[in-house]
């Protein structure tokens, strides 16, 4: 028990106060248990999703590396200026909806990809460009797909981490500040009450002695 936590300021040493404090202690202890359980559950979820995040990141990096090499090939064939020109007319082949899911009080984003048939979305005429450009475009699209999935999962990891930190702070505050302070205050009141009792007893003895002396006179 920590002495530095001190006692609750302005508390009166009465039996009523003592009872109220004991109730508060029970409540705080239960809150502490619940928060500990929440923290454990969050940490489990965090690790499960973390290894997934790692897998997705590696996949994304592999796909992206492939996309870059196809892109550089296309650049060799068509020239950078042509690719830039093509890219300006590009339309979206990948679309997604943004939703929010709630996991243990943490809201995490969901990007629901609604991808359409890719052939309909080639925005340039097939005749005027080489196969290399098509291939590069396809590759970058699949990399983009992975990036969107990764965005979702990394955001989830981040938010879980933030929630774990928050919960940890509250658990620590209860354990190292709130509970010790309540305990110290309870001990203080109990000491004060005992002291009062002793004083009362002493006073009664004195009164009794005085009364007896008076009676003898």
């Amino acid at each position, binding site marked *: 028990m920590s002495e530095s936590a001190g006692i609750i300021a302005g508390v009166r040493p009465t039996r009523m106060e003592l009872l109220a404090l004991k109730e508060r202690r029970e409540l705080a202890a239960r809150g502490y248990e619940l928060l500990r359980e929440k923290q454990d559950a969050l*940490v489990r979820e*965090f690790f499960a999703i*973390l290894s997934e*995040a*790692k897998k997705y*990141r590696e996949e*994304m*990096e592999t796909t*992206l*590396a492939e*996309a*870059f090499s196809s*892109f*550089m090939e296309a*650049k060799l064939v068509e020239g*950078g200026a042509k*690719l*830039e020109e*093509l*890219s*300006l007319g*590009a*339309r*979206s*082949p*990948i*679309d*997604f909806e*943004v939703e*929010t899911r709630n996991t243990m009080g943490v*809201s995490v*984003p969901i*990007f629901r990809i609604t991808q359409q048939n890719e052939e309909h*979305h080639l*925005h340039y005429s097939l005749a005027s460009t080489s196969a290399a*450009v098509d291939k*590069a*475009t396809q590759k*970058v*699209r699949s*990399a*983009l797909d992975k*990036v*969107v999935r*990764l*965005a*979702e999962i*990394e*955001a989830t*990891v*981040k*938010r*879980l*981490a*933030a929630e*774990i*930190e928050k919960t940890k702070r509250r658990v620590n505050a209860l354990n190292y500040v709130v509970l010790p302070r309540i305990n110290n205050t309870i001990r203080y009141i109990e000491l004060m009450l005992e002291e009062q009792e002793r004083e009362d007893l002493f006073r009664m003895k004195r009164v009794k002695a005085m009364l007896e002396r008076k009676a003898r006179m």
Partner: protein
Amino acid sequence: MTDKIAIIGDIDTVVGFRLAGILKSDIPTDPASTRRALLDFSRDSDVSIIIITEPLAEDIRENIEEISQRPYPVIVEIPEKSGRLAKKESPLRRLVKRAIGVELEGF
């Protein structure tokens, strides 16, 4: 329409992703313009994902961290075509350290 994704990167990365259909992009030439691009896209309520290449992200780490506190947009860092930055501490590893309080191998 994918005006929900924005990309900030070098010219090859940006042209590549534009071919794949991303409409919002920026090719900054210095940290100040990288920062401006990031802030502009993050203020754009249509944008929910910002893709940025690692070397550019390194220049404006503080802004990235700050925006990451918010729900949206989500920022994803990707390697440039030259590959992953070797010395960089992975963002996941940093998160693990903060949340759990210990260093973990392999992230």
